[in-house]
């Protein structure tokens, strides 16, 4: 049924329809509304046969889920940012053990400097952990991806992370079609574990593996991911058939067929990009978009197919590897490098720590990619004046102080002066 509903609440409702048996809750902005919503549904009795556990840390949240999943219960938790890093050891462990846990990540920046707003630093930090990572474009997709994620996780016995832009989606209220229990039940069968702690059939899980077998165990993890592409496409097709709308899959193509410039992006920014592309195409620009839904496993072949005809590929990263640049750009570059005539890759870093990615900025960026392409990462809307002043300060004094505080001070001084000037003109 169509509802005007907050993203987090919509996700909670749909996760509940997936009949999770153990939910581990620990608060961290901006995912908190999801577990709060689930807690309400358990207390109200709308979600029955479910253990809702308030744990003492994110590390415990995922550890409890590891235990409950290994003991045969469908297990769910949610986190963000620092929370994901705090549980990092368990994130790798769940993947190594092959436990089909589903976790929502309310994407948020990582400190220092501390920042509660949206970017993809958290998901990128653990991209090599062995989890499947799916990125939602809208709240409808954020809700739907959880149904697909449980199915995918349990078919392959792998953990799946559903990445949802913090605030931009989690706190946005928009139209979401909430499926019925019958629809979800028909799509998602009960959890049948491939390994389970059971006194009737005792096994040991989590043995120490030495050099003689570690490579093989790791290879099997790689094999599982690399052979999952068809399944991910099939599950999306089946979802679309059962629910009457498209969600999930490896990637989505928006006017890439004839495009000279193809943009690649993940998450909620794709909506804004589409609006810009519509305007630019109306002006005659040959531009398209690839919305990457599945980031792990990385759909190399699908990307090669959809981008084979592009001359330029512009990758928008919402995170930064300070020693390298944009992680998504590096991945896309590697995927396309061996094409017969590979496109030029242009990397843009945008929307860090919640900075809005505006239509105006994207418009400028896309024009620049066609007219005056750049080398290395392009920091969208970087305040070069502030950066310049801070660099100058550092050059002058050894004890130049903390960068974050210095930049804030410069900005605040400028802001106050501009505001004062405006008030004076108004009066």
């Amino acid at each position: 049924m169509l509802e005007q509903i907050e993203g987090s609440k919509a996700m909670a409702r749909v996760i509940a329809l997936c009949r999770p048996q153990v939910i581990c809750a620990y608060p961290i902005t901006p995912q908190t509304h999801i577990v709060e919503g689930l807690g309400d549904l358990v207390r109200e009795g709308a979600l029955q046969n479910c253990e809702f556990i308030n744990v003492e840390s994110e590390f415990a949240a995922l550890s409890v889920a590891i235990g409950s999943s290994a003991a045969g219960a469908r297990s769910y938790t949610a986190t963000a940012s620092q929370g994901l890093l705090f549980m990092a050891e368990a994130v790798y462990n769940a993947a190594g053990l092959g436990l089909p846990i589903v976790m929502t990540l309310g994407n948020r920046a990582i400190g220092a400097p501390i920042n509660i707003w949206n970017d993809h630093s958290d998901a990128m930090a653990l991209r090599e952990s062995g989890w499947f990572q799916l990125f939602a474009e809208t709240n409808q997709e954020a809700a739907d991806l959880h149904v697909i994620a449980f199915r995918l996780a349990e078919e392959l016995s792998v953990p799946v992370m559903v990445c949802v832009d913090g605030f931009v989606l989690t706190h946005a209220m928009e139209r979401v079609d909430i499926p019925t229990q019958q629809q979800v039940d028909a799509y998602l069968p009960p959890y049948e574990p491939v390994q389970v702690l059971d006194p009737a059939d005792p096994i040991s899980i989590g043995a120490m593996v030495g050099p003689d077998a570690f490579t093989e165990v790791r290879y099997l993890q790689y094999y599982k991911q690399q052979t999952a592409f068809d399944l991910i496409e099939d599950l999306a097709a089946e979802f679309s058939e059962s629910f009457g709308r498209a969600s999930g899959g490896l990637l989505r193509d928006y006017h890439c067929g004839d495009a000279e410039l193809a943009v690649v992006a993940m998450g909620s920014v794709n909506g804004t990009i589409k609006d810009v592309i519509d305007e630019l195409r109306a002006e005659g620009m040959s531009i398209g978009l690839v919305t990457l839904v599945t980031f792990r496993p990385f759909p190399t072949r699908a990307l090669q197919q959809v981008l084979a005809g592009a001359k330029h590929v512009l990758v928008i990263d919402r995170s930064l590897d300070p020693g390298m640049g944009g992680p998504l750009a590096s991945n896309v570059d590697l995927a396309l490098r061996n094409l017969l005539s590979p496109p030029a890759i242009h990397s843009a870093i945008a929307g860090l720590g919640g900075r809005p990615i505006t239509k105006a900025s994207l418009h400028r960026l896309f024009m620049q990619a066609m007219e005056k392409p750049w080398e290395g990462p392009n920091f969208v809307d970087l305040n070069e004046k502030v950066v310049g002043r801070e660099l100058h300060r550092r050059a002058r004094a050894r004890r130049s102080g903390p960068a974050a505080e210095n930049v804030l001070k410069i900005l605040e001084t400028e802001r106050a002066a501009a505001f004062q000037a405006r008030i004076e003109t108004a009066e």
Partner: protein
Amino acid sequence: MIQVRIHGRGGQGVVTAAEMLSVAAFLEGRHAQAFPSFGSERTGAPVVAFCRIGDREIRLREPVQNPDILIVQDATLFKALDVLEGLSKDGFLLVNTARGFSDIHLDAVVARIPAGHAQAVPATELALAHISRPAPNTALLGAFTALTDIVTLDSVIAAIHRTFPGKLGEANERAARAAHDLVSSHIAAGKDTADA
């Protein structure tokens, strides 16, 4: 597509106002998107929320920079930040104040937008009278439906009842109706403030 920006302070129901507005539009079969400006919200701190209403799926995720309608729930914010930034020249302005626009030095701003597009409403007083709490958001939404024809008063009232069930919803409905009627009478009389 219509874009609304609501300014206020933490505790005044700014985010809830944007959400109720989006629900009202949804109830009329339209697409709507409401979202806050994502701060560590604390009581009394400046808060901004946005609402977009359209007839097609709304894909745009940037904050509302050029609002068609600006709702200001706390007039003291004019001194603290650039509340009016980006207000389109055909825009509407709705301010919660029991004083006139000249008293709060907004004459120049009101003059920049078309006549009849600005209204001052004593929403806090109306809220205190009807809800016994200084929550001006529902009164302002009622006023909004008198100032513009984007959504109807009935839809706003339905949205209010979805957000506040029972007696609280009824009280908020009364506040919204009172504000709607007040602004309607202002418009009929060609006035823009309570005391003008």
